[in-house]
């Protein structure tokens, strides 16, 4: 048995085992839905003025074996939230909306970072300043609804969650 196979074995056995352990250790955590392996990490948001906008960044990874997709986003912080992408066109930086659902293949991630993809919170109910926290609900076709709470920061000083 070569290295690759051994690794394959340990992965195949290890992941469900880990998932089981995680489920036992933290039964109150809704992040690990039995049919989905969606993990949301490194979330942070930018300051924004009430009635205006804020961007949220982080990584959504599909650790599962089935394709999944982000189907809905909501938050008590803003009535309108979309996935946007920055693209350079005609010497200008343009923001382009990505339609939901956004598919995430097994082993793939939706990586969101400044200058690339972001979650756009529009018409903020309240101003968000450095150090504030907000909650997002991200719904996935298989992994269900997941809640993330994270801090408002800036690029040089990203809050850890």
């Amino acid at each position, binding site marked *: 048995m070569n290295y690759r196979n051994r690794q394959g074995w340990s992965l195949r056995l290890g992941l469900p085992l880990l998932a089981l352990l995680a489920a036992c250790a933290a039964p109150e955590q809704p992040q690990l839905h039995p049919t989905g392996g969606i993990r949301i990490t490194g979330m942070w948001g*930018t*300051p*924004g*003025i009430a009635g*205006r*906008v*804020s*961007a949220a960044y982080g990584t959504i990874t599909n650790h599962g074996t089935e394709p999944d997709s982000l189907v809905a986003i909501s938050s008590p912080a803003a*009535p*309108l939230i979309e996935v*946007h992408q*920055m693209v350079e*066109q*005609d*010497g*200008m*930086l*343009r*923001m*382009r*909306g990505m339609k939901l659902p956004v598919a995430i293949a097994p082993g793939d991630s939706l990586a969101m970072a*400044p*200058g690339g993809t*972001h979650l*756009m919170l*529009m*018409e903020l109910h309240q*101003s*968000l*300043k*450095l150090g504030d926290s907000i909650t997002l609900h991200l719904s996935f076709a298989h992994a269900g609804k997941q809640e993330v709470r994270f801090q408002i920061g*800036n*690029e*040089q000083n990203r809050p850890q969650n």
Partner: protein
Amino acid sequence: MMDTASMSKQPTFVAPINNGLLGASRNVWESTLAAFLLPLMAILFFGGCSNSVGETSRVYKLTDERGRTVTFPSDYRGRKLVVSYIYTHCPDVCIVTTTGLEKARKQLAKSDDVTFVSITLDPRRDDTTALRQYAELRGIDTKNWHFLTGPESTVDSLLDEMSLVRRRSFIEQSQTGGELYFIDHDDPVVLWDRKGEIRARFKGTELNPDDVSQAINELP
């Protein structure tokens, strides 16, 4: 001060006068007109059209984030000046630029002779209050960083003179029934010396704070 209207009429204004000057017959009235208009044309043409991004030959009455009147750029002569462009509905690009500049500012060897100026790309929505909040929410000390807005026509002609490409886009229906729009735009950051000469240009979204602070430090 020239307004936007005279700038936009410029092409149709220049052409017939040129023909008149080149023509063989010329009466007194024409010569007088030419003598008066030629320098004016030169000012308009060379001052208004041939400038590259970031230079300006005219002055603009603007307002800073505290509501104080600023004559741009003449009020800043004698200081090192870092000019960038933002708008407060800008979710991503402007923030990358602003954050990079804030980092550069904190690295300066000497910061009291440098002014940072961020000019709004969206004078329609960015009033003094919005700009002040934009700075405050990010913890930016506005002592030497001014956020400028003004009448739409003034800001627009300034942005035009700076050759700043921009386009309103991505219009959404707002929850309150209004219109929510964004602005596609270029992201230049320009460093001017104390005499108003352009000494360095950076791309806001790809800006390395070390390069910016070094360029500022090296300016006499």
